[in-house]
């Protein structure tokens, strides 16, 4: 019997593996893909502030772009620039970054099995028996703790009876091209808004060393066509960026932009996307995923040492998460509900009255100043009051 079986070797899984192995627990990671880190499902952006806060070091090879801010484009093309220490960040090379995290976990003592898929699990004598299938056939692994780091597809949560199914109203349909030959200021990430650009989401250009991550996320309820069609249209309509650009990779994915699920069950913890831990406004989830694993490992250590892994004990992880992110996430979900009501003309108004730092404050769930800013815009103000006030 091992101490900790982690399903999924993304950022959440590998940070969990390192945290657990370095505490001396027998830790095994199973990853269904034959290669860790590929294919990515991500715009690959992360802020320096986020990384520093959770104490994660990145190998320089995992960094593909260095960013000092964001340019936001209203539907008319009007630009708002966000800059400052808080906005500095990296565009990662996920395929390298995730291998770096796995290598760190292995150095700490974790074992890894790639091309090995978890196919079911059952409770037995206070432990979990997890069935996995790989190149050498099927086997059973007995473990005291199962960590579901298996992303939006999470099976672990469902097997443990948790309601991890995403709702289509809160789940971005995402598509991205990695493109070479993109002509965009590489010191900034570029974000584009509008009902005809990316309904209830946004389109992005994230510059990398010799390419750019270009994509968009939309919500189905407001879409007139598929995400892929919106992306082709976006590229066609922006010759200034894409005149000589060609795709060198295509990826897609679902982004859970709301958090509903419970995060623990008896002998089970969910981390990262599996637990829907994504910022509901910008859809970024790498930092949150890694932070959830740091928190989960602290609670798992205590529980394993006590030999008591019931939901009642593990729930401390969920409480810790909620203490740090709960209120902010709820506020940002309200802000999302407000933004979903806006027409293109309202985005133009916001581009007129908001500075870059105001938008940063909004992403940090600060609302009071925003209502004051809207004082001269009665229609927006009443909408904001309706959605943003308690």
């Amino acid at each position: 019997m091992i101490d900790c079986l982690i399903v999924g070797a993304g950022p959440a899984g590998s940070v969990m593996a390192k945290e657990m192995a370095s505490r001396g627990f027998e830790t095994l990671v199973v990853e269904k893909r034959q290669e860790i880190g590929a294919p990515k499902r991500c715009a690959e952006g992360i802020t320096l502030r986020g990384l520093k806060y959770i104490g994660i070091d990145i190998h320089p090879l995992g960094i593909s772009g260095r960013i000092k801010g964001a340019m936001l484009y209203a539907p008319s093309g009007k630009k708002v620039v966000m800059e400052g220490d808080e906005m500095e960040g990296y565009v990662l090379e996920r395929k390298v970054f995730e291998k770096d995290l796995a290598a760190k976990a292995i150095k700490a003592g974790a074992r890894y099995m790639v091309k090995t898929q978890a196919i079911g699990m059952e409770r037995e004598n206070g432990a979990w028996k997890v069935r996995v299938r790989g190149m050498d056939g099927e086997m059973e692994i007995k473990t005291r703790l199962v960590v579901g780091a298996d992303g939006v597809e999470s099976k672990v949560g469902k097997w443990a009876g948790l309601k991890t199914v995403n709702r289509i109203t809160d789940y971005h349909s995402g598509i991205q091209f990695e493109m070479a030959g993109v002509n965009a200021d590489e010191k900034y990430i570029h974000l584009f808004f509008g009902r005809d650009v990316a309904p209830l989401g946004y389109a992005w250009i994230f510059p990398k060393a010799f390419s750019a991550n270009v994509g968009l996320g939309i919500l189905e309820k407001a879409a007139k066509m598929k995400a892929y069609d919106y992306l082709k249209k976006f590229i066609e309509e922006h010759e200034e960026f894409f005149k000589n650009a060609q795709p060198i990779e295509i990826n897609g994915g679902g982004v859970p932009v709301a958090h509903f699920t419970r995060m623990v069950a008896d002998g089970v913890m969910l981390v990262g996307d599996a637990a829907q831990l994504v910022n509901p406004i910008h859809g970024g989830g790498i930092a949150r995923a890694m932070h959830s694993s740091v928190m989960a490992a602290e609670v798992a250590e205590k529980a394993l040492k006590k030999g008591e892994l019931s939901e009642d004990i593990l729930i401390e992880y969920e409480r810790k998460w909620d203490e740090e992110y709960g209120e902010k996430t709820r506020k940002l979900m309200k802000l999302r509900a407000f933004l979903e009501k806006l027409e293109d003309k309202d985005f133009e108004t916001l581009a007129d009255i908001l500075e870059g730092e105001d938008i940063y404050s909004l992403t940090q769930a600060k609302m009071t100043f925003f209502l004051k800013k809207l004082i001269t815009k009665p229609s927006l103000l009443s909408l904001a009051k309706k959605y943003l006030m308690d």
Partner: protein
Amino acid sequence: MIAVDRNKCIYCGGCVGICPVNAMTLEETIITINDSCIDCNLCVKFCPVGALEGSK
């Protein structure tokens, strides 16, 4: 039952995360759908590239 157009599918697995009855699984590059599918077509609506087609 849902049909998967393998020429279009980019095996992102996003559909798996929205299936209310856990009927879908992504195995490397292949989406599998088991008999518990209830033809709700949520995956069809979600699919970013239009690779899924419902029977209704």
